[in-house]
């Protein structure tokens, strides 16, 4: 395995009964890259994320993260290993504040037991204070500190999307998977999001794999793109290669342009 390869999926396939949602998907992602995964609705993009993050175990194929086989590993352990994600349909902890949403990631690393917490022992209090500071700092970096104590459910849509990303960042991932982060955004907001994604890549030293429908986002930000159609990989290459690929134009870009 070549140096710098951070994620590699080896012909992963996911079948739901008779339906093959993803067929023989092979991805190789190198540290620091921003990779796009595109394709029409139902192409199997989210399913690919679900396999990589352990929500589903692939019917066939292997997934390697930093050289380690993570196929079928539990989602929480994959997160601890350094892969984090956002969800296409926002999944925030709605009964909690923005800060509390982010602080969940620190609970996982807490070096104290429930009894310490119940008895409010110094080692628990100290750890929590540190977590609080770390998370407030993170919220400042992503410009959500002004709403830190608001309920997550009460945030406007755009900020909820941003909180999803912040929450994923709080787990200190090296690979971040973004599932349609620009969904529901207007062109202006999409542009801001692009800047934001570039900025966090630098700041947090990330590798990013993103699913996105907004072509201007994908083409503007991704270094390489994989195109799925009915679960099958129909093209892989640079944005220019993808834009000029006849199969892609037929399957996907054509459809988008005719919509526009």
């Amino acid at each position, binding site marked *: 395995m070549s140096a710098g390869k951070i994620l590699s999926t080896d012909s992963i396939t996911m079948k739901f009964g008779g339906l093959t949602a993803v067929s023989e998907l092979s991805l190789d992602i190198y540290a620091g890259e921003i990779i796009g995964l595109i394709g029409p609705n139902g192409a199997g993009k989210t399913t690919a994320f679900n396999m990589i993050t352990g929500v589903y175990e692939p019917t066939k194929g292997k997934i390697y993260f930093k050289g380690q086989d993570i196929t079928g590993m*539990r989602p929480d352990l994959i997160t601890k290993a350094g892969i984090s994600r956002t969800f296409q349909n926002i999944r925030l902890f709605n009964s909690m504040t923005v800060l509390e949403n982010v602080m969940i990631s620190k609970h996982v690393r807490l070096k104290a037991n429930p009894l310490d917490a119940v008895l409010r022992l110094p080692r628990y209090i100290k750890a929590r204070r540190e977590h609080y500071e770390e998370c407030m700092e993170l919220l400042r970096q992503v410009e959500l500190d002004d709403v830190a104590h608001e309920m997550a459910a009460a945030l406007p849509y755009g900020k909820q999307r941003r909180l999803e990303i912040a929450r994923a960042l709080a*787990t200190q991932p090296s690979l971040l998977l973004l599932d349609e982060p620009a969904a529901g955004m207007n062109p202006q907001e999409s542009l801001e999001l692009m800047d934001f994604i570039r900025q966090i890549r630098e700041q947090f030293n990330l590798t990013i794999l993103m699913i996105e429908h907004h072509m201007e986002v994908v083409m503007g930000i991704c270094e390489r793109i994989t195109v799925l159609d009915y679960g099958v990989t129909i093209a892989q290459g640079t944005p220019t290669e993808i834009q000029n690929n006849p199969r892609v134009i037929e399957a996907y870009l054509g459809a988008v342009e005719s919509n526009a």
Partner: protein
Amino acid sequence: MDGRKNIKIALNIATLLVTAVFLYWGDSVLSPFQKRILNLAAIFVILGASMNLVVGFTGMFSLGHSGFMCVGAYTAAILTMSPESKELIYYMEPIVPWLKNIEWPIIPATIMGGIIAAVFGILVGFPALRLRDDYLAIATLGFAEIIRIIVTNTISITNGALGLKNIPSEKSLLFYWSFCIITIIILKNLINSSWGYAFKAIRDNEIAAEAMGVSVFKHKMLSFTIGAFFAGIAGALMAFLITSIDPTMFRFLFTFQILLIVVLGGMGSLTGSVIAGIIITIAMEWLRFVERPMTILGMDIPGIPGMRMVIFAILLLVVVLFYRQGLMGTKEFNWDWLLDKLGLARNRERGIS
């Protein structure tokens, strides 16, 4: 910035002192009947709060509470009854020798009741907590019934269907309410800790919680086991309060009564469980009249046993259908709220500098 904090600490201490004085005073002046009802309320508050941890805070629709209560009650009873009583009561089959001569004081026996119930919690939780929603409800209901059947059939340990009598009696308010207050403090601290937030995260969105690195099964087991522990404590207290127990007491109807407390108080509000626990207990005593024969408009109506439960079932339906939030929703009592009401200036300790 510590002004508010000190006021709150002072208020907490004052409340505890006032409560302690009230309990001492109550122990000497209240009638045995009044004390019994207040003690029953303490037990139901523990039951409601611990079930709320599981159902309201962690979002696991578990209906096994009466089973764990049963384990706690039997454990505490067997550990405290005198060898002579045991000889007398176990006449179908003598009690196994290793339990016969045990005669513990009631406080360690109560705690052991909680521990053994927690062990059962782990045994039940291991298979059951892989299920969700109504499947979990059915499975836990089934396990509670299995526990009851085991208790009915391990005659040389539990005396089977005959039940246990002559359990040491404890009548003081101080005893029951101390357990109740300690339980509430422990649960409150737990819920406000990072574990509590992890429980709520699982309740809000299990997939997202897992994606944040939370080991969902481990946390569900923790919440469920703690819930079982306190159900066991409540069972033990029940044994000392009524001094005779039998397996039929712990049927699933009992769990519904606890569920009513949780729902009426508010799923996800400890304060709600405390208030509803007290209200339901008192209402239940008051409603005893509906089970007695009575004359309405010249008609003689015979007493209908179980009528109270019918009323409670209807109440549960009404709350679930029209009053989902219960009394408190997910809100909690806190001093800040009270101090704000009283117009005391507030330090913006949570504000952003």
